[in-house]
């Protein structure tokens, strides 16, 4: 199936390029990607998978407060971001760290954020998995679901007003499509032809709420019709298919033709977060059904057919990744918490009297306690 901007909504069957073994489907055309990039992309997928495993284990050991995994959805991270340049903007939700790594967010920065320590780029102000990194145009993540959607429209639109060709990519789950924010964002983007790409990771679940409780629409992509923009349904576990539809969407956006909505059909194989126990609300066999469609295995199969994958190389990069994580973890664990008086920075550009007064109170309190600041309990 050819994906073109002309086609307003794809049929209900999501667009795939690879079969479950990573072989090209009959008639499918893979997007042109240099071999080196194919290998980097594979490594990018692996990094997310391994990082998630390790951080979740860390959380289980009580060394990390909270974590959220993306297992099974990694292709959406890399596929969304690969077709963009560093000037483009990402408005992420909490479940696309692979997009940040791809752009140069370091493992140490990532782990420092999880710890909320003094080297966390967001200064220990937000829960784990709420990253922000201006250097890579990776906008601050918010917990409230869907709020980033109209913001991404504003950023794309601002680029257009500023006569730049930058594109904004906004990620969200299928649960977010139920919010008013989704609606107003999509509608504004349609009206102003904002160069914004709406990337819906339909992973079947919003905490305990299944996809069919979220909407009576046949597909999420179908919602695009109501905003006068193309809606494309893509196999969310097929990295090549995602890159292909993203290429089309990015081209459209840069050509001034406006926004595109992409529904990537995938599956949340893990719990919603480290606090969640999905066995309470869903059949434990359901995730198992998605294992044969694993995005990493499928992409590996493709690399293999191209002669780019060997067992040895695989082992080598896994070892590398593990070593890098260990090193980053060690480095991050040696960083202390932010200084208490940083609590008052960045509320405003300056420090108004009432915050100065409160800051002094806190410093006095700490001094009165003999300079020994109690560490935040867990």
């Amino acid at each position, binding site marked *: 199936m050819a994906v073109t901007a002309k086609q307003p909504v794809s049929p209900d069957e999501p667009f795939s390029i690879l079969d479950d073994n990573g072989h090209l489907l009959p008639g499918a055309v893979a997007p042109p990607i240099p071999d080196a990039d194919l290998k980097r992309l594979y490594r990018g997928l692996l990094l997310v998978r391994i990082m998630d495993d390790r951080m979740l284990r860390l959380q289980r050991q009580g060394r990390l407060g909270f974590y959220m995994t993306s297992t099974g959805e990694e292709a959406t991270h890399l596929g969304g971001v690969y077709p963009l340049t560093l000037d483009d903007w990402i408005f992420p939700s909490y479940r696309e760290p692979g997009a940040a790594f791809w752009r140069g967010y370091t493992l140490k920065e990532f782990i420092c954020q999880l710890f909320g320590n003094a080297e966390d780029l967001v200064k*220990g102000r937000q*829960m784990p998995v709420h990253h922000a990194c201006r250097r890579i145009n990776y906008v601050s993540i918010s*917990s409230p679901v869907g709020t980033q959607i109209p913001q991404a429209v504003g950023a794309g639109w601002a680029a257009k007003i500023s006569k730049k060709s930058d594109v904004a990519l906004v990620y969200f789950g299928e649960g977010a499509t139920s919010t008013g924010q989704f609606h107003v964002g999509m509608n504004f983007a349609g009206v102003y032809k904002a160069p914004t790409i709406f990337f819906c990771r339909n992973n079947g679940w919003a905490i305990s*709420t299944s996809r069919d409780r979220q909407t009576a629409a046949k597909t999420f992509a179908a919602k695009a019709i109501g905003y006068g923009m193309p809606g494309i349904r893509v196999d969310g576990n097929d990295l090549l298919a995602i890159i292909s539809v993203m290429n089309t969407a990015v081209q459209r956006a840069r050509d001034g033709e406006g926004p595109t909505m992409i529904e990537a059909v995938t599956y949340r194989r893990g719990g919603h977060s480290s606090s969640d126990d999905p066995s309470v609300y869903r059949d434990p066999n359901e995730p198992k059904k998605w294992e044969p469609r694993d995005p990493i295995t499928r992409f590996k199969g493709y690399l293999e057919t191209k002669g780019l994958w060997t067992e040895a190389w695989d082992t080598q990069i896994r070892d590398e990744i593990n070593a890098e994580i260990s090193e980053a973890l060690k480095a991050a664990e040696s960083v202390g*918490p*932010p200084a208490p008086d940083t*609590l008052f920075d960045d*509320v405003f550009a300056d420090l108004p009297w009432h915050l100065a007064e409160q800051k002094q109170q806190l410093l006095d309190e700490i001094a*009165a306690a003999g300079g020994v600041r109690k560490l935040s309990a867990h």
Partner: protein
Amino acid sequence: MPVMNIIQAVNDALRIEMRRDQRVVVLGEDVGKFGGVFRATSGLFEEFGPDRVIDTPLAEAGIIGSAVGMALYGLRPVPEIQFADFIYPAYDQIVNELAKFRYRSGGQYPAPVVIRTPYGGGIRGGHYHSQSPEAYFVHTPGLKVVIPSNPYDAKGLLLSAMRGEDPVIFMEPKRVYRAARGEVPEGDYTVPLGQAKIVREGKGITVLAYGAMLHTVIEAAAKAAEAGIDAEVIDLRTLLPLDLETVLTSVRKTGRVCIVHEAPRTCGYGAELAALIAEKALTSLEAPIERVAGFDTPFPYTLENEYLPSPERVMASMRRAVEFQ
């Protein structure tokens, strides 16, 4: 008498009222099969079925907007907002619609909706799983605002709220959801809205608090007693309407006041309390009223213990008030 925590007490109140009154329905994100992310609605789906315990799409405006419509029609909806931090998408439905329906329709359309929502910090939740937005609702005419601090009150106040004729914002102190345990009578009883409770009698200073902070204050009062400060601790329980009588009686006795809440200080509920006390009992005041509150910053993550009023901070503030000449 069974011992319960606050979650169990809330659950018990919901079950009792749903059995008693067919009109009561519970709705919200993940409240059904899952029983709520804090398990406050656990077991209700099994007992009352999907028509009365409703898992909704992810849209707070839809939850409250449809709850308003249900109430107009004659049901008694008890929506849950998963965290108080996520209540703002429904803010318009709450402050412009729910709060004003009876008034704007000339009394023709009351909308008795009880919105339950966990609030407050101390659970390592950062900006968006820690907020205490009670002052926004107290400032909105037409809403009653209730915050229990313990299981007994949680059950009795929730039962009162569900049987009342007015919209109620019922905020549950999630920090002590499980930690605050106590005896709770089986079956039906109510704690009336609008009545504060003196939880510790004392002559030296009046300390006003509610919700999770009540526990911080009790700890502080115990420490203070060792230092010879005899605190009278009042659990306000209902923020609007306030039990001003109980507050003023105490202030007239002690002459000194310390108000504690975790919401940001500026324009917080403590401001109203301080203003009211200074208005009605100025001549009784022997010291400036102390406010111990969250700082005027967004709620932090790593430094939340620095942010939140601690027993030490409350104690220091009580001392300042008591030592003031």
